[in-house]
């Protein structure tokens, strides 16, 4: 089996009003990787995501899952959507049932599973996002962060291979972001491929294994975050570079060369540890 779990090949899409949202877009999402999709507003991230789940069908080009072309029949779409789950940016758009349990069971019920399996999946999904204790709670009484977690549980209950999250950190405070990151880490450790669209470059730089940068409906760059996010054309497209990378660059101008000493910190904690290690080494006679 190839590394590519989903592949887009020259995909173009034009909305009914004539807006070209994707233009000849080709990209690959690798299995069991944490992929960050970056790009300015209107770059085509959400449209691309809607293609991955079969909500939109390309005007031209093809998509593949496990090297097999997407099938847009009723059965094909049901299978695709059970394997590629999508969590939307606004949880209020996703949650429409009265209780947490009822909403999480919506996906499994659409898969035609029996009641026992649905109950098991719902319980496991809620457990995975640490919401098991709130199964019977009305959805409208949940906090924004809890709603986000219920949305993820709703997708997890379908036991997907890939979870796509559109701006999952938007609207969350720092503590909630940390909690959600921990949930995503657990899911990734369990073998799920995670794809996130984000404007938070620092998060993408520290979290992702693979980054895809989109611009004007196409792929501008792809690779590891430390490789591509420092490229000038990517910096121009995104309007900035990750703060950690900026600090490393500034330190190098001051004579503290972290990269030269073999350190490639991607998070704040790693940066502090690297600075400490390098400065201690330089101080040692």
């Amino acid at each position, binding site marked *: 089996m190839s590394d590519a779990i989903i592949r887009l090949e020259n995909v173009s899409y034009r909305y009914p009003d004539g807006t070209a949202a994707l233009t000849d877009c080709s990209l690959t999402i690798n299995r069991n990787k944490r992929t960050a999709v970056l790009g300015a507003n209107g770059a085509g991230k959400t449209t691309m995501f809607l293609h991955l789940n079969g909500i939109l069908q390309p005007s031209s080009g093809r998509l593949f899952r496990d090297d097999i072309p997407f099938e847009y029949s009723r059965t094909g779409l049901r299978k695709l959507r059970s394997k590629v789950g999508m969590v939307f940016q606004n949880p209020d758009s*996703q949650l429409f049932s*009265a209780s947490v349990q009822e909403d999480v069971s919506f996906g499994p019920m659409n898969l035609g599973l029996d009641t026992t399996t649905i109950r098991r999946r719902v319980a496991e999904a809620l457990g995975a996002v640490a919401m098991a204790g709130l199964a019977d709670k009305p959805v*409208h009484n949940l906090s924004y962060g809890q709603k986000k977690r219920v949305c993820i549980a709703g997708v997890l209950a379908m036991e997907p291979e890939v979870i796509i999250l559109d701006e999952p950190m938007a609207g969350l405070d720092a503590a909630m972001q940390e909690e959600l990151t921990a949930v995503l880490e657990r899911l990734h450790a369990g073998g799920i491929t995670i794809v996130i669209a984000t404007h938070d470059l620092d998060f993408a730089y520290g979290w992702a294994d693979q980054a895809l940068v989109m611009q004007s409906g196409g792929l501008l760059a792809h690779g590891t975050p430390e490789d591509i996010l420092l490229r000038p054309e990517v910096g121009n497209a995104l309007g900035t570079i990750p703060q950690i990378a900026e600090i490393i660059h500034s330190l190098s101008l001051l004579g503290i060369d972290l990269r030269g000493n073999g350190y490639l910190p991607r998070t704040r904690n790693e940066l502090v540890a690297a600075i400490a290690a390098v400065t201690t080494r330089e101080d040692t006679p």
Partner: protein
Amino acid sequence: MNAITTAVIDLKQLELFAQGDTQVHGRDARVKVLVTLFFILSVISYHRYEINGLLPFTLFPIIMVCRAELPIPYLARKMLLICPFILLIGAFNPLLDRSTLWQVGSIEISGGCISLLSLLLRSFLTIGAALILVATTGFTTICQALERLGMPEVFTVQLLFLHRYLFVLAEEAERASRARELRSCGSTGRGIGSFGSLTGHLLLRTWQRAERIHTTMLSRGFTGQFHGQRRERFSHADLTFLISWSVTFLLMRTMEPATLLGSFITGAFP
């Protein structure tokens, strides 16, 4: 809290009651739909001046509420909400129909007053039965039951979407109303122009939000069919429930137990 928010939460609360685990909740949804339908038909089949014949029918909602362990204050509040509408419908009855129908001592009660009272009673009974049905079954399951009873799928799906759209509409209306209030500086008269624009925006916003919700439903494997929480299997208990209530309603309708009881009491204690 905004009145619209309260109304939405209240509506959702009704759906939450349907997740109970009593015997009534466990009955086949088709049976509950049929029993409720028979009940409503029996109640509305009385003529406009009927009061005595309707009284025994209060047993059904009382028994169902007790056995389903539904909160009486909640249901009572919902029923009181409809009072103004019924009063509006029957407000002219006492004025138009002044013929004396009952006489209590020296007080003459006109046919209009009796028909208004009968209308109120029938409305409480039928709407109460419908509320109990939703609170013990859930709207999705009711629609599934209707489909299994022969209603075309296209109608049941429309009903379900309409039901879900109500929540979307109410939530968006609440946001629009709050935004208007925040910038109206306490004044109430903002003119028909402002109201028209607000309504137009509300329609567009609910439309867009409904589309987003539909997209999220599609992404979770929705293919045009709603699936209820319970898998229905018709049991002997369901059959007993259906037959016993149907026969009871038929007896109540034909034999008029209130009159019989009255005759018995007056016969026993002449």
